[in-house]
Every structure is written in C-alpha cells, then in structure tokens.
C-alpha cells in the first residue's frame, strides 16, 4: 500500500508536540487510546498529563483515578524511562465552569452567579458545556507549562466537533439579546422585530413561567462583564488548538457509522485548518495465520466430524477472514475519499483494556509504524 502511515511514535516523542487531541464518535476506544498514548510518551521519558472525560471505572482505577477530580494527579507507576512522568485527571465539568466564573469576576458577583438556578442549567446541561470545559481545562493546563505533553480525550459529541463550536454557541446564547427582548421588550425593539414577537414573548412566558425568565435575565446581567474575558479565552483556546505543537487524531473503528463520523471529523478539522495528524483505525482484525479462505472452508467441512476441534479453529479463522474482508472494504472506501490522510491500524485486543499492561500493549501497536 502506497499511502502514508501515521507515525504516532514520532509525534509523541517529538518535544515540539505539546498537545494531542483524540476525537471520534462514542464507543470507539477514544479514552483508552488517549491513555495508551500518554503512557507510551511517559515511558519515552516525557512529562505527560492525560485529561479524560468519562473513563470506564476499571480504566480510571488503573490510572489511580477514584473520583472526578479537577487537578491532574501523578500516576504512581514505574516508567521505562525514569525521567518520564504520567499524570491523569477526570474532567469535572461543573467545577471547571465554576472556576472559570471565579477567575473572571469579583467574589460577590461570582457567588451571585453560582446560586442562580439558571446558571445550574447552563453549567450542567447546556449541550456543548462539557466540550467547552474540556477545552477550557486544556487551555488552563497548557498555560501552566507544567507538562511536556497533554493528551486530551473529547466527549462523544452528539454532533461532531461540538468542542469547536461550543464557545461560540454559548457566548452568542448568553450575550443576552434574546433575554433582554423577552424580559423587557422596549418600544424601539418591538418596531424592529414586529408584532409576532410580542405574541411569541407572551407564549414563551406562558410556557416557561415568569420566574424562569427573571432568573435568566438576572443571570445575563451578572454575566455581562465577563463576556469580554470569555470570548478572549475562547479565542485563545482556538489558537492553541491550531498551533503547530498540537496534533489531532481521529479515532474510529472499521464500521460504516463510525467511519462516516470520522470522515466528518477529518473534513471539519481541515476546514478549520486544525493540525490533523491522521486516523487511528482501532480494533481491527488482521488474520494471524496465512491460510486462504477456500482451503480453510474445504478443510473445515471435511473434518467437521473427524476432528471437530480443528474444524472449530478453522471456523474461527474463516469468520476472521470474513470480518477482515469487510474491514478492508470499509477502509478502501474511506481511503478513496481521504487519499492523503495518514492512517494507523491497531489490531483488537482479546479483552477490553483496563490495566497498564494492556494500555502498554495498545501503545506498542499504536506506534509500531
């Protein structure tokens, strides 16, 4: 195959690489991949932090993470290179938001914001808040210069790349135009938006209740002078993501839905001129024995009764060849569209990876190129 192979080893080892962001749809092994890359880089002697979003319990435990914790903790393990360090943290969305509010406002004002019921809605369930906070945390961590490399896992977004859009969406939502319109529509405004709005405003008030709007209006007022700071920050994060020291990797399994999402991620990252390093094709099934399908099928049928165990082993082999054929077909389709995107395949482990040896094995497979 003539296409470029994604050389993750070179990327993770390179002292110029400061941030690696993994993205992809849910259930493709993003978190595990991020943890494996971080461990590999730490083994190579770098000081690495891995920022995870929602790790499986056992994976979290093997990284020494017991609960949501907003500061990286050092993982107590022996690394191949004693100069290396591995730090890990699990993102606490609400707390990150609280911290951001505190950093951008006076203590009294921050207190008033934190108790506003509307703030609770925004900081916990506004779609995109988690993505936004992941990037916010990344930005904060990067600014400390405490780490050689930060590996960030992203939430499995409902719509791909919410983390790029969320700051923009959140601030345009919060900039208060709509809330002011709804809570205190003045004559001048009414001329512009027309009589339909009056009805709408009435309807919204009927549906949501006046208290809700009141809380929202108060919240926006409190928030108002923080907007400048927020926007600046969002812009700063965006620039960090675009900087040469950042590498985005898209993670996908070799199935149609997941690859479709991956394709979308790749296109979108390129459109935003984000540094896309390549695609990790996770959990593939290359055959481990050189035995062509026809020979295996003929033999399997022949020895079904006389040697059932050998026949079963051949059955496992033919299944695997069928899965592999489907994977290659999927991959060929993807490759035709993304001709110059470097790809690395990571063969599936037998079990879910949740201990350090398994993470190391994945790290080895990731960097085998």
């Amino acid at each position, binding site marked *: 195959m003539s296409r470029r192979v994604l050389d993750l080893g070179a990327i993770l080892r390179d002292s110029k690489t400061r941030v690696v962001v993994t993205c992809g749809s849910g259930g493709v092994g993003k978190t595990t991949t991020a943890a494996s890359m971080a461990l590999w880089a730490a083994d190579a002697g770098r000081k690495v932090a891995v920022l995870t979003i929602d790790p499986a319990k056992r994976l979290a435990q093997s990284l020494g993470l017991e609960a949501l914790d907003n500061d990286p903790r050092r993982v107590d393990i022996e690394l191949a290179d004693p100069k290396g360090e591995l730090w890990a943290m699990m993102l606490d969305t609400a707390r990150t938001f609280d911290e951001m509010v505190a950093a951008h406002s006076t203590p009294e004002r921050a207190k008033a914001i934190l108790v506003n019921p509307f703030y609770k809605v925004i900081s916990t369930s506004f779609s995109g808040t988690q993505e936004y906070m992941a990037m916010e945390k990344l930005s904060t961590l990067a600014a400390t210069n405490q780490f050689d490399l930060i590996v960030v896992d992203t939430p499995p977004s409902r719509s791909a790349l919410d983390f790029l859009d969320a700051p923009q969406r959140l601030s345009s939502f919060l900039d208060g135009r709509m809330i002011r319109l709804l809570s205190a529509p003045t004559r001048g405004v009414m001329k512009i938006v027309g009589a339909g709005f009056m009805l709408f405003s009435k309807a919204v008030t*009927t549906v949501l209740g006046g208290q809700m709007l009141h809380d929202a209006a108060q919240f926006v007022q409190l928030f108002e002078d923080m907007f400048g700071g927020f926007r600046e920050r969002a812009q700063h994060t965006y620039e960090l993501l675009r900087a040469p020291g950042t590498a985005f990797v898209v993670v996908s399994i070799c*199935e149609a839905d997941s690859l479709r999402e991956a394709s979308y991620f790749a296109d979108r990252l390129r459109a935003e001129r984000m540094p896309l390093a390549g695609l990790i094709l996770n959990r593939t099934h290359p055959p481990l024995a050189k035995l062509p399908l026809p020979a295996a099928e003929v033999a399997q049928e022949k020895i079904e009764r006389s040697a059932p165990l050998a026949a079963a082993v051949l059955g496992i082999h033919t299944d695997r060849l069928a899965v592999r054929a489907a994977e290659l077909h999927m991959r060929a389709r993807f490759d035709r569209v993304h001709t110059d995107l470097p790809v690395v395949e990571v063969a599936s482990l037998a079990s*879910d990876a949740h201990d350090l040896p398994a993470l190391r094995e994945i790290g080895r497979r990731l960097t085998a190129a």
Partner: protein
Amino acid sequence: MTPAEPRAAAPAPDTAPDNEPGATPKAAIGNGTAAGNGKAGKVAPARDPWTAACHRARLHVVTGKGGTGKTTVAAALALTLATEGRRVLLVEVEERQGIARLFDVPPLPYEERKVAVASGGGEVRALCIDVEAALLEYFQIFYNLGFAGRSLKKMGAVEFATTLAPGLRDVLLTGKVKETVTRLGSDNKLVYDAVVMDAPPTGRVVTFLGVTGAMSDIARRGPIHSQAEGVVRLLHSADTIVHLVTLLEDMPVTETLETIEHLRDADLPVGTIIVNAATVSRLPPASLTPAAENRLDKSRLAAGLAQGGITADDAMLDGLAVQAAEHAIRVLDEADCREQLVATGLPILSLPRLVDGGDLGGVYELSDQLAEQGVR
C-alpha cells in the same frame, strides 16, 4: 431468507420439554450461557422473552449506551412488529437522521414517511422530530402564531426557549410521541399499531422519560403543562415499555444495570434487555478455557488439519491458536457480562454480531432474529 422461515421455527419450543435448554435455536440464542440457572430453579429457560407485557405495549422505547447499535435495533424491532399487515411508526428524537441513513432515504422532514415494507404487507413509517418545529406547532395551535414562526426561528428564539428550559425540549418530544401513539384515523381506529422510539442514550433516558421533573421547568397553567400530564400518564401505563440495548462489554453492561435501577426507581416499565452483536461461540464449552489460555494441543490440531489437506507449519499453528484464544476469551468475557444481565431477572433477547451489518439488509436480518425469539 423467506419470511416464512422464522415462523416455521417458532413452534419448536412447544414440542420440546421445558427443561431442555439448548434444544431449540431460540434457547440456544437467548439463554445459551444461562442454562445453569435453570437448575437453580430461578430462571425458567423456556420463558418467552417477549412477555405478555411487551406484547400488550404500544409504545416501545429503545435506549442504550452510545455505540451499542440502538438505532439499528429500534429499526429491526419496528420491522418485526410491522409483520402481518400492521403499521408501525419509528420515531427519532435526537435529530441525528440515523433512521434516514439506515433506510438509505434522504433526510427525513418533520413528517411521517414510509421507509420500509415488512413481510405480510405491513409497513414502517418514520418520523424525525424537530424540536423547533414541534414548539412552533404548539404555538400555532394555541396562539395561532404560525405566520411569525419562521422569523422567530431565524432569530434563534426557539432555540433560546428550549435551551433556557431543557425540560421543555423533552416535554415537546415526548408530547409529539404521545400524539402519534394515541392518534385516531378517520375510521376512529388507532393509526399506528405500535410506535417504536429511538430514545436518547442510557445516560439521559431517565431524565427524558421523567417528564414530571421536567414539568417544574414549565409554567403551571400553560397548555404544554396539561399536555405533559397526559405524557406522564402514558409513560407510566401498560401501553409503554422500555427496552435496553447493550453489547456484552463492561461499560455498556454497567450502564445498562444502572439505568434499569433508575428506570425502576422512576416507576417506568422495563421490558427486555436486547443484547446486540453477541459473539456466537465456535468452540465446544469444554474447550473454551484451554483455548483461552492458549493450551490447545497443537499436534492434535495439526493432525486434524492434515485430514483436511492442510499442511500447517508452526507459524500457522501458532497463529490459529492465538486467534482461537482471542475468540475464546471474548466468548468467556461475554458470558460473564450475560450473567450480570440475567441476574436482573429481565427477559433477554440476543442478536448476533453481523459482518458488515450496518445497512438495510442487516436490519432485516436482525428483524428475523427478533421474530425467531418470539417478538411479535
């Protein structure tokens, strides 16, 4: 596969004695590893996973962790329920257009469209609920506000309202679903025999269905409030049942178990657990552990292969043995996961992993599998 096949297989369980797990395809699929529990007398192995309550329900809510194949399973279930001339609506509530992709049709508008024909003349229609459109629909009905709808949408007013009160969003979605479940045709009969909802993932589904909580977001006396009360009645009635799709893997199983508890706490009726993408074991049970530990007798394996005309060198034998080990480990891990699911006491439907199954052919195949396990 002809549609007659699954039904031809169906009578088999009746002719087989109750205590013979594994004697029928159904038991082999549904309760393969649960056979031991039969002896304990706790789980009747021949119990029909599609219980009377499932059969009675008209709104089937399908949830599952992201990546478990929830949409595909919901579509397969809709197709199975639509056999014998019935009409089923498949509803999507997250505006992802997953149904359109699955059935290979253009993105669905906010409108019910026929997407598939089931055996026996039944049909599946699909609806992708657009929250903004649903809210404007309300405003049109209650405030005659249709004309201004478009400009309001453009201003972001609707998105604003649903963001301000996320509960409103859920009430609008479930409200629309309720309307489809209870809708009568001109003949005064129900338009849909069943409605299958591709619901939000496990992490969100209890909040989504717990409309009562969301109602605190909504003004007490508004029209949407009384609508929401009707939704609560429907969701807690025998007309509704929730199915959970899971893979036999750690994270999805843990989430499934947690969600079952939360659903039960919220007094929402749980129907079945639908295991998706299960590995069908190739190895006899006694060989699983030796195979998993890579202790298969290689000279015996070589002899067996030789009978089939294959001369295997050491590299090939090693490769085959490692493949068998990976398969066996997978099967054993899945059996552990399945045991945890069995412990819930809920009926389990089981669907195999399909090679290249993400297309419409796969949906029909899974639908046949559901029919074979008694879904009707």
